[in-house]
């Protein structure tokens, strides 16, 4: 069995699953509200509208709850920070050799850009959505502008998230990482080599079975922990 390395903690996977589910509900109800042929089929405006509003309002909640988790916060910091290597990664996109300069940490530059764009877009949709929710008494807000931004944001989000799904469909090991939490070491070395370099060089040995008389941890494992800290 190929050696596997831990990539996503249970908290991160739960945040991903809940956010994905809420996004799907948002998208389907949005289609039922504003794509005319579907709207004519579905109708039931009050029900669909209520589900859309609440799923939209709840969309950022899994990520906010995820802030309790150390690994999730650490990944947010990684997504926020762009290094010189990320610029080389982006420059590599224009290179005829697809692998030149494509060294990445836990997240590559494309994933960082995607995540940042998504976070901003969700906040814009949340803000405009709330303005649309309160239908009366906001006379100072140009409603045509709010509708325009919410509409354009919906189309853009649908396209960008579809891209995310297509990239995942093309890479079973990346999907396995989000589903099970761990990835094959060889995959991590190819796609996220800089990240793998920071992880311990060898797996932590299993606990000793000789009655627990040996030292609490093997020397090379604690050495690896020092390297990573």
């Amino acid at each position, binding site marked *: 069995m190929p050696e*596997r*390395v*831990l990539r996503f*903690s249970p908290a991160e996977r739960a945040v991903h699953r809940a956010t994905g589910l809420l996004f799907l509900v948002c998208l389907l109800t949005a289609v039922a509200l504003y794509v*005319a042929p579907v*709207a*004519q089929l579905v*109708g*039931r*405006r009050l029900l669909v509208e209520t589900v859309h509003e609440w799923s939209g309002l709840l969309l950022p909640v899994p990520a906010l709850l995820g802030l309790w988790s150390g*690994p999730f*916060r*650490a990944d947010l*910091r*990684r997504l*926020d*920070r*762009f*290094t*010189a*290597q*990320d610029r080389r990664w982006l420059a590599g996109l224009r290179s005829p050799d697809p692998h030149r300069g494509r060294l990445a*940490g*836990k*997240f590559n530059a494309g994933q*960082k850009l995607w995540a*940042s*764009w998504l*976070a*901003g*877009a969700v*906040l*814009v949709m949340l*803000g*405009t959505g709330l303005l*649309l929710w309160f*239908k009366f008494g906001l006379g100072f*807000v*140009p*409603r*045509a*502008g*709010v*509708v*325009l*931004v919410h509409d*354009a*944001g919906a189309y853009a989000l649908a396209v960008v998230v579809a891209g995310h799904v297509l990239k995942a469909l093309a890479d079973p090991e990346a999907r396995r990482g989000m589903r099970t939490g*761990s990835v094959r070491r060889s995959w991590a070395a190819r796609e996220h080599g*800089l*990240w793998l370099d*920071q*992880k*311990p060089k*060898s*797996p*932590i040995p299993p606990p000793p079975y000789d009655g627990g008389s040996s030292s609490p941890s093997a020397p090379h494992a604690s050495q*690896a922990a020092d390297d*990573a*800290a």
Partner: protein
Amino acid sequence: MIDKGMPDAGMPDATGPAGRPVGRRIVLAMLGLGAAGVALGPAVRSGLGEVRASLSRVAPAVVPDDRGFRYFSVVGSVPRKDATTYRLTVGGLVDRPATYTLDQLAALPQTTVVHDAVCTDGWQVDAVPFTGVLLRDLLDAAGVRDEGAAVRFTCFDGAYSESLTLEQARRSDVVVALRMFDEPVPHDSGGPVRLFVAPMYFYKSAKWLSGIEVTSQVQQGYWEDYGYPVDGWLPGEEPVGA
């Protein structure tokens, strides 16, 4: 075997500096872009409408020419009515209750009211011409009794209802519409007959109108039960002193 390792929490991926916080700048830029879009939206909207209209001329199957209207219905499906099946009843606190066919309505004096249709959801269609019978003509023909003070509207979708005070109902810009843009009102727009209350939000203009009933007081309509104002005046359209 799963390598638990140590979480490299908070560590930059590459050795050396932690890198620049580009991610949060992108988030802020998106927020700025959104705010700018809201501010510029009204100007952009008319341009987009023209783009859409020209696209629908080229490929009407892909981009239907909805003129900016969006389909709203509170029920799952709405039965279709035509000249043979449609009936409009006028009743309640009146001396002469009546039932009209589509042809009978079309034979009455017709008035065209041109006004923006403004939805509470934020979309609007500028200067929509609705043509039909003034509501006050139908009320006068039925003879409103002294105790009548309001009008309740019911619809053949089976769920929607609306209401107006008698004073509002007698306005010259409240019409029982048979035509829109000089064509029969399509089913999806509330045809064959819908109400058009020009000075109020579009939810007051009940689609698929089937009943007009004079009542002694205003009975809340469908959306008003969910918190919408009973007097849905558009901003600036409320009569002075009302």
